[in-house]
């Protein structure tokens, strides 16, 4: 296997780190992934759709998994599917949706791989109804630092199985995975868009609609302030009994980095105003294909170049429902005061935590915002970390690049449980990432 010196970044293009990367093509190569590692560390890399540093490893090794993208078996009666971990959710939708089957949990990008979806235990717009990715997971074939591959499931090494869900790649290399697909009546959803003039109205709508619809997500205008603070458009969707013609995709690509000044408070304000007026006051209903509803941003390849060469940071947190409204108000006030030029922000309801000790979800509200990297961005994010922490909330590792180790420990109270499992399978600390060092996930200040 060829290790090559390179520089890798996440989807936010920030931070970027020098590392050695290899992309195994065959199983025997993959099985030797830990060979020749010496004192260094290794981390798996899926499609690189995480924003921050969870799939990066400064001065260490990165194992790119996306050549392991084969479907190994499918049972159309039970919906049981067996795949290699580097297969993308997009490939699975392309193959199975025409047959009436769907991976029940999809994040906002279908370019993510199954391995990445498990390692961050990703959630979709249906989290309250269907849980996170782990809910459709049956087993994982995990290559351990010892060089041995084991199949873990709820029946065999449940602790390791659960720790791997949301374990940010620190429990081993996922080679193959058993999933269970669900049946859907068609390739489309009946989508309803409702406008809410402020945060109170929006939260009320999320709660009311959340009870009815399977899918629910709100886009909010993060620049709105005063009486309009938190105004947004709620999109809810239910399975449609009748589908849409399945024409080819018309994807576009952003061919160049936009200059850093392209996104400024004025242009973002103009965009948000345009977007707000797009939906009539009384709302509207339409039928949309799963891919266009679930992955709106995937239609523009490399859209992250919009933020220019300097990259951007995403802030994503969940805050518990009880105190949620106050927490959100404080966060949004801080953002709108900073005029940091966040584009559309996402707000949605979240359901129960997953089984993994580093599971992100908790019943409450999720807020996500993107910020171009500027002077002041890090201060803003530090303030938002503090607000989140004070309200008992949690920051999502898949999107993060600047949470403090201290904040991490406070937000993830089951960390010791996670450490115990990882210590057992990786006593010599051969797995590690830039994220695991930044947050001191293993403890003792080492990888």
């Amino acid at each position, binding site marked *: 296997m060829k290790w090559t010196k390179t520089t890798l970044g996440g989807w936010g293009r920030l931070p970027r780190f020098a590392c050695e990367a290899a992309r195994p*093509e065959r199983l025997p190569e993959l099985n030797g992934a830990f060979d020749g590692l010496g004192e260094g560390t290794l981390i798996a890399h899926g499609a690189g759709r995480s924003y921050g540093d969870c799939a990066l490893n400064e001065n260490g090794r990165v194992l790119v998994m996306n050549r392991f993208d084969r479907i190994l078996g499918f049972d159309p009666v039970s919906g049981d599917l067996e795949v290699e971990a580097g297969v993308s959710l997009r490939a699975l939708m392309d193959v199975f949706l025409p047959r009436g089957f769907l991976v029940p949990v999809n994040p906002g990008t279908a370019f993510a791989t199954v391995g990445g979806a498990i390692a961050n235990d990703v959630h979709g717009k249906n989290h309250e109804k269907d849980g996170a990715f782990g809910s459709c997971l049956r087993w994982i074939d995990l290559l351990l630092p010892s060089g041995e591959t084991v199949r873990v499931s709820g029946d065999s090494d449940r602790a390791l199985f659960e720790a791997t869900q949301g374990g940010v790649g620190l429990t081993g290399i996922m080679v193959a995975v058993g999933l269970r697909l669900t049946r859907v009546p068609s390739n489309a959803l009946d989508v309803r868009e409702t406008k809410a003039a402020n945060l109170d109205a929006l939260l009320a709508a999320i709660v009311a609609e959340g009870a009815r619809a399977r899918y629910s997500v709100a886009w909010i205008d993060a620049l709105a302030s005063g009486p309009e603070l938190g105004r947004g458009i709620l999109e809810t969707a239910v399975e449609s009994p009748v589908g849409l013609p399945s024409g080819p995709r018309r994807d576009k690509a952003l061919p160049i980095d936009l200059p850093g000044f392209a996104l400024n408070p004025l242009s973002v304000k103009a965009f948000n105003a345009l977007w707000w007026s797009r939906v009539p006051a009384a709302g509207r209903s339409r039928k949309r294909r799963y891919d266009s509803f679930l992955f709106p941003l995937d239609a523009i390849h490399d859209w992250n170049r919009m933020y220019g060469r300097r990259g951007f940071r995403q802030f994503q947190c969940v805050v518990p429902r009880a105190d949620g409204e106050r927490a959100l108000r404080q966060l949004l006030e801080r953002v709108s005061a900073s005029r940091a030029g966040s584009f559309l922000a996402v707000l949605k309801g979240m359901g129960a935590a997953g089984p993994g000790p580093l599971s992100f979800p908790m019943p409450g509200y999720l807020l996500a915002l993107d910020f171009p990297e500027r002077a002041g961005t890090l201060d803003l994010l530090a303030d938002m970390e503090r607000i989140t922490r004070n309200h008992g909330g949690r920051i999502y590792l898949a999107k993060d690049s600047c949470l403090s180790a201290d904040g991490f420990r406070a937000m993830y109270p089951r960390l010791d449980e996670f450490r115990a499992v990882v210590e057992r399978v990786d006593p010599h600390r051969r797995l590690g990432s830039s994220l695991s060092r930044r947050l001191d996930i293993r403890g003792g200040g080492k990888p």
Partner: protein
Amino acid sequence: MSRRVWAILGASSPIARAFAREAAATGASLVLAGRDIADMERTALDLRVRGAASVAVVPWDAGDRPTQKALVSALDVPANDVLNLFVAVGSMPAQADIEARPELIDEVVASNYAATAFTILCLLPALERRRAGSVVVLGSVAGDRGRASNFVYGSAKAAMATFLQGLRARLEPAGVKVVSVKLGFVDTGMTWGLLKGGPLVSTPESLGRRVFAFAAAGKAGEIYHSSLWFWIMAIIRNLPYAIFRRLPI
């Protein structure tokens, strides 16, 4: 009913996998041929789920004549099945290594030219008899003009391209279409770590999609991939030698 059979030579490569998936999605029957049986068995699982009518795995090795001959009997399918061949075989040792150990030329010639040409010659009667089908062979722009940095490999690719030119003319009256694909940069294990990306670099998926669509439309001829390479090579072929020699390529 007649089946469409695609034999895939060098079936463990990511390009072959991408091409075979296109064929599988149309319900073709596939025969995967190559060295790594275990790997091809895994790919066969994938292709079955994606819609292939059937998938068989057979050994085929560029360094082993008997396996090449044996492919003929593996492809001894009913007379009204349409037989198609896709070849993604090749190896590129560094020019300096070949100069240090000239014996390597046998391997270069076998894997980039002779083994494929031999197999096609063995299959000629079967192809001709059916009066339909396509033969698609992947080559390289390196065969278009000999460069100081890579001329041993390039000359084997040139031999292959010339063979295919003649084969196209030979099979045209029989209704068999020959497609010669000249590749620029493709993101594969061979080029891992050497390429930065950009419009000159293609993915196995876009290559597989384009070439399959070309063959499925019943077209024959020579194509460059990505297509930008057509223009680049038109220039490179026509540069005066004195300038060409000084190019850092």
